[in-house]
């Protein structure tokens, strides 16, 4: 059991009783927001890592009289490969095999995919030389001119849109966190002011016997930290099952964007800072509130 000694009669001070519950809610919301932000950023980082330094060229099968002309399609693929391999800055260009295609489609179409029955485009995985600067505009023009069924998929463009989306979500999350922090501070200020009014005679006595403002402020900070700690632990414990549930639900989704939104070990460590920060914020806010109000007393 946590105990602390105080000259102020905090036990039985009803003005502070609701503080743990408010901190609990704030830690819950802040934790949920932080977890969401961390997951999004982790997802973005994973996507960025996996596709940076690569391109994909898609070659649509050549159709003649409603049927796929495999010979012409194969020739076009070879033309594309030829152009790619001659382009400076490209390290390798390889056509994805049937088994690679099947594994890509597996999450969407299941295990028994008959590629021959589907008008699937052929995909060429292009790996770039690290830090090489490639004139993608020129490459696209060249491919469009010589291989009309080929199209260049520059991941960076798609990724740019994803980054923008995640950045927007990050911004909203930051706004929400700011709101939670502001609300917590306002609540602590309100609770502290009420408590100071209740204990004014004791504070006057402490001043009278020579207590510095800091001596009284520290007692308030300790008391608030104690109450906030209770709330923070409750809030964090309420958050855990929800995060585990969401994490498990995302994990069950095979393939696609959401499966990448995993919650990593480092994120759990960062999340543990949310209750710690809530306690620190509450204690510091109480400390400065008491200091500010005591300054007005003789």
């Amino acid at each position, binding site marked *: 059991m946590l105990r602390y000694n105080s*000259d102020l*009669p905090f*036990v039985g001070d009803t003005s502070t009783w609701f503080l743990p519950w408010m901190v609990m809610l704030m830690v819950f919301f802040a934790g949920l927001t932080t977890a969401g932000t961390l997951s999004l950023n982790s997802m973005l980082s994973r996507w960025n890592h996996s596709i940076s330094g690569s391109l994909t060229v898609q070659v649509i099968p050549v159709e003649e009289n409603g049927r796929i002309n495999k010979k012409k399609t194969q020739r076009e693929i070879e033309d594309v490969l030829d152009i790619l391999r001659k382009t400076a800055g490209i390290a390798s260009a390889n056509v994805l095999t049937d088994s690679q295609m099947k594994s890509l489609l597996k999450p969407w179409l299941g295990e028994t995919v008959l590629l021959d029955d589907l008008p699937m485009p052929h995909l060429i995985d292009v790996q770039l030389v690290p830090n090489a600067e490639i004139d993608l505009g020129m490459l696209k023009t060249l491919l469009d001119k010589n291989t009309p069924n080929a199209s260049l998929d520059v991941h960076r463009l798609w990724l740019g849109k994803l980054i923008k989306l995640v950045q927007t979500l990050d911004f909203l999350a930051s706004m929400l966190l700011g709101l939670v922090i502001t609300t917590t501070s306002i609540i602590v200020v309100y609770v502290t002011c009420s408590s100071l009014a209740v204990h004014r*005679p*004791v504070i*006057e*006595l*402490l*001043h*009278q*016997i*020579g*207590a*510095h403002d800091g*001596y009284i402020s520290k007692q308030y900070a300790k008391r608030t930290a104690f109450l906030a700690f209770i709330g923070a632990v409750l809030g964090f414990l309420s958050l855990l099952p929800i995060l585990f549930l969401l994490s498990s639900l995302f994990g069950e989704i095979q393939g696609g964007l959401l499966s990448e939104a995993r919650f990593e070990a480092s994120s759990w460590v960062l999340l543990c800072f949310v209750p710690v920060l809530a306690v620190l914020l509450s204690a510091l806010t109480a400390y400065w509130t008491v200091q500010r109000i005591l*300054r007005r007393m*003789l």
Partner: protein
Amino acid sequence: MPIQNVIEFDAVGLRYGQGAEILKDVSFSLPIGSFHFLTGESGAGKTSLLSLLYLAQSPTRGHVKLFSRAINNIPRDDLPVIRRKIGVVFQDFRLLDHLSAFDNVALPLRVAGYSQDEIQKRVTELLIWVGLGSHLNAKPPTLSGGQKQSVAIARAVINRPHILLADEPTGNMDDKSAIRLMRLFVELNKRGTTVVIATHNEGLIKAFPFPRMHLVNGRLTIYPVGYSLNQNFFKTESLRA
């Protein structure tokens, strides 16, 4: 070498809000190591005068100097150090009910940053001396009026103050206890503490020959030792006994 005054009042006036002046043109000075009784009818301004002395408020007009420093010019951060030199026994004791007798008395030492060992030694010793050795852990609500008063006095003197101010310190005590505590004040006074005791107890004033500061309608007069105000000395004989 001139006697150094520890307290100096110069034409001090005090009023609460827009009300009538409680203290009017109060001027006096108390040298280091002096002992004075403060007397006057109820409502004459004794408690208000004491509150100025223990820096609970500032005068409406005039100048107050404590330890040769004008209180209006003392930076707020220096006030705690000055207040630690002033021990106060309040009329209503102002004990903290949630703390034990020991912790109440220990408060001035705690705020001054004394070590736990020093606090333990000094507080226990003093509480035994005032007859509360068996009540160290008792909370004020469980103590009698006299015992509470003893705790309040112990708290005021535990830090060996330079100035001791007491508002009716023996009001709830029997004569024997009152004499015993007065001797404690006298002992402190002999060691250099300047003492001002507000009291209605003429017997006590007779028993201990010190000058008196007498307030009438907010105006102060200082009378030398032995000066009689022709008031009721109903306790004199029993106190002498």
